């Protein structure tokens, strides 16, 4: 079963935190090649893996994954703040 494409910010967030693919893979318990497939959008993660990745990055899952192409993180955070206030 092939689902709709899920976009993500894994590559940017990983680089930002100075993690290698191997480091991130070890943190969430997958093979490092799977991180590559995720970053290129060639594989949609399970909910379990998506949650684990969000926990590692310390962000809500909707900031890491989206059905729409990703906007800049700064825009996304500003939107969130506007919604909260």
């Amino acid at each position: 079963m092939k689902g709709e494409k899920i976009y993500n910010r894994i590559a940017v967030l990983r680089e930002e935190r100075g993690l290698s693919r191997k480091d991130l893979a070890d943190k969430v318990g997958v093979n490092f090649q799977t991180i590559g497939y995720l970053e290129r959008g060639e594989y949609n993660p399970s909910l379990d893996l998506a949650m684990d990745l969000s926990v590692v990055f310390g962000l809500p899952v909707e900031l890491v994954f989206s059905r729409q192409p990703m906007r800049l993180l700064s825009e996304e955070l500003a939107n969130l703040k506007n919604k909260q206030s």
Partner: protein
Amino acid sequence: MIRTIPLLHRRIAVVAQLGCYPVFLLLACIFDMSSDLTNVLAFLGVIASSAYLYYKTGLWQFGNAPDEQVDERQIQIRNQAYRFAYMGLSTLALLFVIYLTLAHDFRWIVPTGNLLVWSVITLVLVLPSAILAWTETDV
């Protein structure tokens, strides 16, 4: 340490691995070659290509390890590989039975002996891992 092999090289090795026994079987049937010679050559071909494909690449483990040792994407891809392997083997078995039926009527050459047995054994043993070696872009 994991060894990486470019996709093209992997595909060539897969063709060699799966093709050695059938090609030598065909040569033995057509040219009436010595079965000892063809057996040894085919065996060496399969061993060399398998060693090249699987030594420290993780591909054999990917195709054969228990589910606990592979991640969710690998399980998904491996299930697809097993499905293709099953379909491939079923198709080949069916074609072979049809060939045998026709060969009897039309007096075609019927392959028999060690090479046929080893062709089938090689195919059954390595097909899922060979499919993964053929399809995975990132190994």
